[in-house]
Structures are given as C-alpha cells and as structure tokens.
C-alpha cells in the first residue's frame, strides 16, 4: 500500500506548552487512521498543522509524496473540526455551495455534488432553510457533507459522531467505510475507543505532545495482551492447580486463567485434557483499546499542566 501522508519530526511550541513535540507517523492510502489521545494531548494542533492552519515550528509534512503546500493542497483535504461552525443566517444550500467553491470547485460542479450528497442524506428539503433552524444533529450531517463534498483524498474528522443519534451515527459510519473503499484516506480523531476498534485500521496514541503508541489495532492488542484466556469445561478436573497458569476468576465451570511466564496456551489445554476434562470453549481475551488507553495514559494528570517552554 502506498503512503498518502508522511509526517516527520513535527514540532509546534506555544509560549506555555509544547503542544506537539517531535511526532512522526505515516498514513496509508485508503486506510482509516485513528488519532487518539486524551484531552489536551495535542491532537488538534497536530491536525491544524496537517490542514495548513498552523505552520510547524520544525519538521516536514509530505502529502502524496510531495512537500505539503497549504495553498494548493487544500483541495485534497477535507477537515471537519471539533468546533463545528456554519454561518447561522445563511441558507443551507448556499452555505454548501459557498464552502465547496472556496475549496476550489467551480459553481457547476459544486451544484451537482451538493445535490448528489443532499439526496444521499435525504436533505433536499433543507436547501432554503437557514442554518440556525437546523437541529444539532442536522447541522452535524450538513457539516459532514460539506467536509467530503469536494472529494478530497484525505478526510480529517475530529470527533465526527459527537451529538449524533445511533441512526445518524450509523449513516455517517457507513459513509466513512464507503469513502475508504473508494480509496479516500480518513484520519479520525477521537477519544471514544469503541468506535476506534470498530472503524480504524491503524492508530497512533498521543499524550502530552508526544507519540506513545503506533500500530495496527491487531498488533497493538497483541502487544498489550496479558495472556488471559477463558476456558469452559464440562466438568472441573480433580486437580485444578497447575504450574502453567493461575486462576484469575472462577464461575462454576467457567474459568478465567492467566498463563504464567514460560508456558504457552497449549500447556493449559494439555493439562485439562490429561485431567479428562471436556473442553467446550477456549478463548484468548485481548485487552480492549479502552483498557490500553487508560493503562498508558494513567498517571498523567487529567488536566495538562502549563509549563514554560524554552525553544
């Protein structure tokens, strides 16, 4: 798979904080990339540099193998910020047309695209409504449409599901998958871990301005597994104890086991087989991203402290 975005040693220091402190990562074309981190970790600053809103203090950003140029490359990027915003007094259709044209589309193309997306999301009747008349969920949908309207190759979504009901949430999730299938790359910034597990191929975790984790969701789960298995037996063996494992939890014939250092999962199975216990189910329990997140971020104060930066 080829790379669409390559970020190297990116730095942005503010007077009171090292907002982004030497972060590097790559994003594959057509993947759904999760940018995770607690509040104030530096995610928004990182995104603002990728979208050309901020200039980095140091480091390089490459888009499509070329050095990122904010003026010409905006057409390739669609960004939906966490702070959602639209002109309240403007009509929905005009607003979508206006923002599409600012991205560089001509009037005619913009009109066709807006119509197409409005139909897809059943928003045709909103065209002449003012934005201030829309509900929060409705304006969220409009915002999403505006973000992807100009068919950018890289879509950056900051907390795209906040404020959406499950039905609309699913609608947008489907669209995200659709876009990825068509080759659009999506960077997805959030701290809602269950969505990340469901959607993302690859994630990085940022805390206090530095990258602390990078990998595919599968790899990361493997990396953080604690060798915990559940076993369901038809009857408990006569001798339950064995050197290969210790029991974390027992609920009748259902056991939660932690495999001890130096043993493999098959050693446990062999023990049960030797003990004549019938094995009904045997599963590895992988940690959820949520657990990994909490484990890694734990110990950091919930609110990031201000520090003096001497750059």
């Amino acid at each position: 798979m080829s790379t669409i975005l390559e970020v190297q040693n990116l730095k942005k220091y503010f007077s009171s904080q090292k907002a982004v402190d030497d972060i590097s990562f790559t994003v594959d074309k057509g993947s759904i990339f999760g940018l995770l981190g607690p509040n104030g970790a530096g995610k928004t600053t990182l995104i603002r540099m990728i979208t050309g809103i901020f200039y980095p203090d140091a480091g390089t950003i490459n888009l499509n193998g070329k050095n990122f140029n904010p003026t010409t490359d905006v057409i390739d990027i669609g960004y939906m910020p966490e702070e959602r915003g639209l002109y309240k007094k403007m009509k929905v259709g005009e607003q979508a047309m206006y923002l599409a044209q600012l991205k560089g589309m001509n009037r005619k193309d913009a009109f066709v695209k807006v119509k197409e997306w409005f139909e897809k999301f059943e928003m045709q009747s909103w065209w002449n409504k003012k934005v201030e008349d829309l509900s929060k969920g409705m304006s969220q949908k409009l915002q999403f449409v505006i973000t992807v309207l100009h068919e950018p190759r890289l879509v950056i979504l900051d907390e795209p599901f906040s404020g959406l009901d499950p039905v609309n949430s699913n609608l947008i999730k489907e669209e995200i998958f659709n876009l990825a299938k068509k080759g659009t790359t999506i960077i997805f910034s959030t701290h809602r871990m269950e969505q990340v597990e469901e959607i993302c191929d690859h994630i990085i975790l940022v805390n206090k301005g530095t990258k602390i984790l990078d990998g595919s969701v599968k790899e990361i789960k493997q990396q953080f597994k604690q060798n915990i298995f559940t076993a369901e037996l038809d009857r408990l063996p006569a001798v339950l104890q064995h050197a290969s494992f210790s029991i974390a939890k027992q609920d009748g014939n259902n056991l939660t086991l932690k495999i001890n250092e130096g043993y493999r999962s098959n050693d446990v199975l062999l023990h049960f087989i030797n003990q004549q216990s019938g094995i009904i189910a045997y599963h590895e329990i992988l940690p959820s991203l949520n657990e990994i997140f909490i484990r890694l971020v734990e110990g950091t104060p919930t609110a990031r402290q201000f520090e003096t930066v001497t750059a």
Partner: protein
Amino acid sequence: MNKILIIIKREYITRVRNKTFLLSTFLFPLLMFALMFGGAFIGANGTEQRKIAVDDQSGIYKNNFKTGAAVEFGYPAEVNRNNYKDKGYEGVLIIYSANRQKADSVRLYTEKQLGLGTDEAIKNQIQKINENRLLMDRGVTRNTLDSIRQLSESKESLNYRSYQVKGSEIKEENKMLALAIGYASGFIIYIVLIIYGTVVMRGVMEEKTNRIAEVMVSSVKPFQLMMGKIIGIAAVGLTQLFLWILLIFLLSSLSSLFISPELLEQAQKMNETMPSMAQSNSMAFKIAEAKNTIFSANWALIIPCFIFYFLFGYLFYASLFAAVGSVVNEDPQEAQSLMLPITLPIVLGIFIMINAIQNPSGSLAVWGSIIPFTSPIVMMSRIPFGVPGTVEYWQLGLSMLSLVAGFLFTTWLSAKIYRTGILLYGKKATLKEMAKWAFKKA
C-alpha cells in the same frame, strides 16, 4: 485571488439583501432632511409667545421692553413672585433696585422652563435698553437714536462680499457652500468609519462565535478571509453612498417645492432675535442658498477626493476593527473596551474638523489633515475651501500618500493579530498579547 472574490461576493450579497441595509439606505436621507427642514419649520412657525410680567423697581425699563415674537411684556401693578399667575402671566421679571435709576440685579421667575429662546430675547432687550440709556445720558436725543438704528439695520447700510483672487481670475468666494460641503463630507466619513468599522468587527465576531473560522481557514488563508470581508463591506458602503447621493439630490429638488422663500426669510429673522435657534435654521438656509450656487463648487475635484478619503479612511480603520473582532468572544462588553483606542482618534478627527472649518489654513487643520488617523475627516472639510488655495498640492499629496501607507501598515499589523485571534477561544486577549502576536515572526 479567486477565493477572495468568492468571499467578497458572499459578504456583499448577504448584506445588501439584508432588511436593515435597505431601511438605513432609504431612511437616513429622509431623516437628515426631516431634521434640517423640520428645524426650520419649527423655528419659523412653532415658537410660542410667552407672557412675562415686569416689576421694575428702578424705573429705567418700564415700558421700554418691546413685545416680540418670543415674549410679550406686561406691566401690571403690585405684581410679585406669588401672584403673577393670577394676573395671567407665565413669569415675572423683577428688576431689583435700592435707589431709583440704577438696577442692582434682574431676576426672572417662572414655573415652567421657558427655554433658551425666551432667555436670549429678554437678555437682548435689557442690553439694548441699557445701551440706549447710556447713549441718551451722553446727550443723544431719542430721535437721533431711532434714526441711527433704522439706518444701521437696513440692508443698504452694509454691502459686503468677499472675493478669492487667483492670478488674474477673480472669483466670488462662497464660504457658505464650502462650509456646508466640508461639514457634510466630514460627518459622512465619520459616520462611515464608525458604522462600517463596527460592521466589520461584528462580522468577524460572528465567524468566531459561530465557530466557522476554523472551517474557513482550512480552505482559505486568514488574510484572504479578512480582506474579503473588508472589501465586501466596502462595496456595500459604496453602494449605500451612491444611493444616498442619488436620494439627497432627489429630495433636495423636491424640497424646493415645499420650502418657500418667504419661509426662509422668516427663518432668518428668527435667527436674529434668537441666536440659539440659529443652528438648525441656518443649516436649512445654507442648504437652500447652496442650491442656488451649487455649481460654483469644484465638483470635479471634490467628488474624487471624497471617494478616495471615504474608501481609504474606511480601509485604514476596517482592518483594525477586524483585529478587535478576532480577539473578543461573545461578550460585547469586551469589544467595547478594545474598540476605544480605535474610536478615539475618529472622534478626535471630528473635533479637529470643527476647528478646521473655522480656520482651514491653521496648523492644527493642516496636520490633522495629513496624519492618517484623522486625515479622512479633516481633509474633506478643507478641500471645498479650494485646492491649491487653501489646501496646497503638497499637503493633499502627502495626506493621500500617508493614508495609503497607513492603510498598508494597519492591514499588515491586523492580519497578524487576526490570524492568531480568530482561532483562540475562551479568553480575551490583552493589548500586550495582541502586540506580541503582531510583531512575532510568521
């Protein structure tokens, strides 16, 4: 560049379509005319005559007060502060005197406020009576006195005109017209700076509070966003200006149908008896008079200059207003305090202008019309007095140059503040922080 055009178009169209734009465009000229001619009408027709009783203890003034348009005097016997109302008067004028033939003090007692006009009329009469008495004391007879008055008040006694000499060309000076044009253009520019500056500021604040700024700056540069807004609103301002000029010409030609020469004459008579009323009357009078000689003004120079100062004065201040809008949040109070350093020089400009109208060649007027903070207002009040007569060419050139340079500087400065401010939520920036943003590199 193309993106700035798209932004300009949106800013222009959303504003011109707005109801408040239509209302203010059509109501402002109507209101101005109502104020000016309304004043004249009220001055001419609406003054009430007050009835004042006089208790003259000195014996000098009795029967010497002339009943005029403003006051009717009466001399009832035994009048005092408590009984004047029973005798059918609205006030009592008591001239206190210890020994006859000398007034110690004069006091007017009334129940209601009678207004400045009444006061002025009474004071004028007392002065005139004193003057006459002093003259008669020195041997001038009553008859001589009356004939002198009659002669000096007649139109023939003074035939005064002033001329402006330019080489061999002698032109009749029309100070009244220059004054009227100077005042009007100075005030219009003042109003434009304040109103349109505030419109720019509100527009930026709207983008910030609606949180659309971040969406916008991910598509366009903050500078494009700011300039698009400023230029778009300038176009709205020019549209409004042209509509105003059109309407004013239309209304003034209509107004001549309603305002008869007799009415104006009457208004001018009122001015003589009551100088305090003169302001609004003479304004209307000036307009009417100006209309007769309106083509004597150098419009070919005044109109382009006006458009220049209108536009660049606005551009000079608009970016500063945009910078203020970018650093404040929802709270309008915050905006007020940060606006003060910007509105102060504009208001100062008006004060200098009022001075410059009286003395258009004075050094305050000259420098006020060159320094870009006040030049749009002050220069426009001087230009009607003549270029190069009153305003020399170098002054006009320097003034225009420094205004353009000033505009480039304020825009450069504001763009830097704006870029940082527009994405900053939560707290209001201090002036110190703004200065830091403005002068830090990229």
